[in-house]
């Protein structure tokens, strides 16, 4: 193959990758909806704050919680017990590797438990699915607080 054809084919690969990534970013920006703070989001965030403090966690920033979880818990409440989501969640409970060195570790108890409290406040009907996953885990206090 001639060097010219080789280079022009490469150009197509690069342009293809750029178009796809930019297209995805634009789609993401269009679809992105900032949570609009209202009485409902505030009420939920404060409820979560109360529950967390009761469970021994430091009080979270209510404004950030409103932004993250809105009124319905956002992505956290999106089928938490689904097999694929649970699988990825389990794979993610790992060491600090970002490549093929990723390996599961013994996770921190409080870091995992906090998600159950979020579900309890924002989508109590989905707690059971997640609780099953959580019950199967053996954890320890590995984070210094």
């Amino acid at each position: 193959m001639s060097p010219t054809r080789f280079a022009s084919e490469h150009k197509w690969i690069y342009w293809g990758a750029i178009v796809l990534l930019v297209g995805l970013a634009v789609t993401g920006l269009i679809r992105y909806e900032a949570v609009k703070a209202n009485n409902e989001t505030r009420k939920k965030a404060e409820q979560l704050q109360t529950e967390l403090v009761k469970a021994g966690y430091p009080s979270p920033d209510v404004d950030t919680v409103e932004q993250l979880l809105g009124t319905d818990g956002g992505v956290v409440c999106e089928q938490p017990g689904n097999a694929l989501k649970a699988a990825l969640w389990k794979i993610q409970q790992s060491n600090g590797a970002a490549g093929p060195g990723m390996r599961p570790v013994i996770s921190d108890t409080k870091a995992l438990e906090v998600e159950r409290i979020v579900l309890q406040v924002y989508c109590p009907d989905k707690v059971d699915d997640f609780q099953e996953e959580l019950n199967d885990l053996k954890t320890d206090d590995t984070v210094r607080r």
Partner: protein
Amino acid sequence: MSSIDTPAEVPRPRAATQTAAPSTMTWVTLALMTTASVASLRAAPTMAIYGLACVFLYLVPAIVFLLPTALVSAELASGWNGGVYRWVAEGLSKPLGFLAVWCQFAMTIFYYPSLLAFVASTIAYVIDPSLASNGVYTAIVIMVLYWTGVWVSSRGTKALAGLSSWGLIIGTLVPGTILVVLGMVFLGQGNPSAAPMNASHLLPEWTGLASLVLIVNNFLSYSGMEMNAVHVSSLKDPAKEYPKSMFLAMGLVLLIFILPALAISWVVPADQLSLTAGVMQAFDAFFSYFDIGWMTPIAAVMLISASLAGMLTWLAGPSKGLLEISRQEGYLPPFLQKLNKFGIQQNILVTQGVVTSVIALMYALIPNVSSVYWIFSTITTQVYLIVYLLMFAAAMRLRKTKPDHPRGYRVPALGLVCTVGLLSSLAALGIGFVPPSQFGGSSVWSYVLFIGCGLLVLGFLIPWLFLKFRKPNWRTAAAGAPSEGGRA
């Protein structure tokens, strides 16, 4: 400490003096490829939970594992072309060289589905989060991305070197810098760090075995540093340039792992990070603080490009090493040794692709497979540790048996460095048998048995079968004959 030297009285390394193939990449590109193989921001939220202790969790493994791996592979690659198969073949034996590159290759088969499942869920986060729980969607994304990666890899090293380097820059270096700058702005505004940054938080919580598992398993954060040495012959002057490339990659990897994780821990408290499941949601928490939540989908796209860049380097590296030794020694059937017009091991890539596709489809479509998939990451990392054991042993032996072989770089106190590397690898191998959280309260011995059997089958039985059933006429190239851009 370390030095890069080519004394005048010593003949220059073979790699540097031969004039065969033209160089196809610079040492900076190779450094970026190496960094892309190992590091990304994917782990930053996970490690940010540990606060200041994440520095310890990355630095200690860097001293006992990253440094030995980087230094030893720098010396070996500056003396011998071809990567780990060649080093082990020269230092120990050719069958062990095959075992080393097989282990490097085999573990990637299980890595791709989990990596691409993460990419699929990140794309879903950008487009429509409900897709993340859809098996058919996940299967389609994995298939399309994986086979596109195979196609790009089969176009030659130059194509993937460019893509993976840019993937690292766009997907890791740029967003990593943004995270760190925002973190500094946060502190500069007079805000106290969310995670305590005092001496008492330098070390992680000690809870016995769980902490040991965390620390030792972090050695593996750096696995893959030596993998791109297989492309060393694509450099203009491998003897001098490879060590430089390795040192640059080492610095980049450390910065990418430590600084963004610290920046996140300054802004978002550990327990607030855990409020939301998932990597992207953690980034959302970070950006939401600065009222730039719209950055999250852009960060997601960047993370996708970094993950795909990493995949490309893994597709090209181990399969090339497997091809090289198989052509020279006839370890694989001729069908698998066939090259395409770009000199790429297309049939190995396609065969690997078929196996990976089957595993990926099972992962995406069969809940019983996906729910236990995490266990394969333990087995494959165990298999990968065999590569390191062989590499350190080979380096020590080569210093004894071929002390005068020209090397562009010599590791000071090689024996000590290799011993530290060997002990670290053995410790990681041993700790791999300790059940993690995901195994729950089931029998420890059943876990040990499962991991042990996986290690035996994938790491020993399959390569042994290839060696046992090989035929003399499978040898298709004289020892040392190159494929794409290769020089012996």
